[in-house]
């Protein structure tokens, strides 16, 4: 991760986000949910990093901790030269315009009592001292950029469809010319025929404005389309981080293999002959992860070492990082 020549825009090192569990009559601290437990990655300027995994794996928490919507328990998040994880509140506020978020549910993330213009210009109200006229100009410009008709500026979110609402959320995120946008499942709530519209918009904007994305999703085929590199998370940790084409052609981590093989494909001929890796059981609780490798309870290739020793994320091939003993230093030829 350190050998690339341009400086990464986002550099995350050993990020931990633990949530306390309080229990008993006196609400004593009884343990903690290790939602994110030691995650490291870089995102290059203009790159899209896909972050995939199943519900509860901590992918959304990573996104939120990156933008300091949660204060991380440990680790550093350097975005554009400053460690967001430790910034003072005042400095953080000044930092906010460079980093923005597009949320999953456009229904819940837009205030139903605000007009579209008010929603999109709210970041401008907060962070600029522009005149009302200038702000309205900017709102109109943003609406053009995301493909919303200017005439709708005084309408309310409920008058729009899901896809259009997501465009409103994107316009709001763009208002302050951010460099980095966390897209947290931006298409999960949309119909198939609308998803493509929103993804194409995100790609166009990236090209035009030079944006850098963290694209969080559970939709592996959409991530293959949009991401340059992909990180696969399992139970609060990154199992594999690889360039897109390498990952989809030949996943290395057993969990990445199982995950990719579980995705049904719209091709009955292939589906009939495809060999699936069916994982047994459920994901363990992040409050009580297993000893050793966190995937050892479900891994089809588990061996003794996995139950004792936690594998570190290590570069096993050029640009490919895997946390698995199968590719450990003791047996470099494996896989």
């Amino acid at each position, binding site marked *: 991760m350190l050998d690339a020549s341009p400086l990464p825009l986002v550099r995350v090192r050993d990020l931990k986000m633990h949530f306390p569990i309080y229990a008993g009559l006196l609400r004593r601290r009884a343990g903690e949910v290790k939602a994110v437990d030691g995650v490291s990655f870089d995102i290059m300027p203009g790159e899209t990093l896909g972050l995939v995994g*199943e519900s509860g794996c901590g992918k959304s928490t990573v996104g939120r901790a990156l933008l300091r919507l949660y204060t991380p328990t440990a680790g550093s998040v350097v975005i554009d030269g400053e460690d967001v994880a430790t910034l003072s509140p005042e400095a953080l506020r000044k930092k906010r315009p460079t980093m923005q978020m597009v949320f999953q549910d456009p229904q819940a993330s837009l205030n139903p009592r605000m007009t579209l213009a008010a929603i999109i210009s709210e970041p401008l109200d907060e962070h600029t001292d522009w005149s009302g006229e200038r702000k309205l100009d900017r709102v109109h410009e943003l609406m053009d950029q995301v493909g919303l008709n200017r005439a709708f500026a005084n309408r309310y979110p409920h008058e729009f469809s899901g896809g259009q609402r997501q465009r409103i959320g994107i316009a709001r995120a763009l208002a302050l010319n951010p460099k980095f946008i966390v897209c947290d499942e931006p298409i999960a709530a949309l119909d198939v025929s609308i998803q*493509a*519209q929103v993804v*194409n918009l995100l790609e166009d904007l990236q090209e035009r404005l030079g944006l850098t994305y963290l694209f969080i999703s559970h939709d592996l085929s959409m991530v*293959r389309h949009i991401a340059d590199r992909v990180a696969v998370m399992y139970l609060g940790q990154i199992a594999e981080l690889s360039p897109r084409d390498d990952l989809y052609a030949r996943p290395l981590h057993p969990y990445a293999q199982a995950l990719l093989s*579980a995705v049904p494909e719209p091709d*009955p*001929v292939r589906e009939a002959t495809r060999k*699936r890796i069916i994982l047994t059981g459920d994901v363990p609780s992040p409050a009580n992860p297993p000893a050793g490798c966190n995937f050892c309870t479900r891994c089809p290739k588990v061996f003794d070492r996995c139950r004792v020793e936690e594998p570190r994320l290590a570069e096993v091939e050029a640009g490919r990082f895997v946390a698995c003993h199968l590719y450990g230093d003791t047996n470099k030829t494996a896989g």
Partner: protein
Amino acid sequence: MPDGALPVLDVRGLKTVFRTRGGEVHAVNSVSFMLRPGELLGVVGESGSGKSVTMMSLIGLLPSPPAEVRAGQVMLGDRDLLKIGPRALQDVRGAKVGFVFQDPMTSLNPVFTVGSQIMEPLMRHMGMNRAEARKRATELLALVGIPDAQKRLKAYPHQFSGGMRQRVMIAIALACDPDVLIADEPTTALDVTIQAQIIELVKDLRQKLGMAIIWITHDLGVIAGIADRVMVMYGGQVVEQAPVAELFADPRHPYTRALLKTIPSLTGERGARLQVIEGQPPIMTAEPVACPFRARCAHAFARCEAENPQRRAVDDRPVGLGHDVACHWSPEGV
């Protein structure tokens, strides 16, 4: 799937309307289909296409008002479910027709044990006493792959994970050995690895029990792997219907063709840009007089505005049995 067998379910000209303050919404417009014994029929469509409403109309699951089944015939064996009345329909639901819903958390009752919820239909429909029902419930839980079934009967739904809850739902739906199982987006709320488990389970149960299944989904990938036949719905109508291999190999309706192109693939060529179906799905405020897809269709012409296309066979097999499409256009030219 024997081709000549009598259908277990034969639906003709079903029309369902919702009466709302803003006027009527024609959610289902003249939907016809049949289901043969042991067959798995996939129903594909986006939200609002009428796929769920169609299936809920069949067995009177829609609250009325606002819903009103205005026309049609639903033959289950030799009985028309739309005519037999609410009491008789109760005997059909759960006994002859099982239903699995999308969200296993909201469709299981949180204050009753899983065991009592599986035993309820057994006692209600099969006339079993508690002991018999408990024995059968244990068998059912084991059948759907829940380990330690006897002990798990006493557990409450919140003590199960999402995938396990969906297994419980399937156990309840199968309790009375139904002729037809209707599964409405049964894996949509689940993660892919859990979805793969449930799909394997259903394939396995089909082999063991041989019931006919209607599987509603918006995921063409899921359909490709399990369905025998597929029905594509749009704007409350069936726009295309075909055996699964034919539908994917030779889609005839512009909507089906666009839908198949718009989803990115896990393998193969990675397109630089996703194909887009512009516009929004329609809200059917009146009985359609034109093709519901015309506004988004790349091939629309004057006739599509003037006349709502009827389903026509693509080859010499009759409509509903082979490959049919409701479109004035054809890939070979009009």
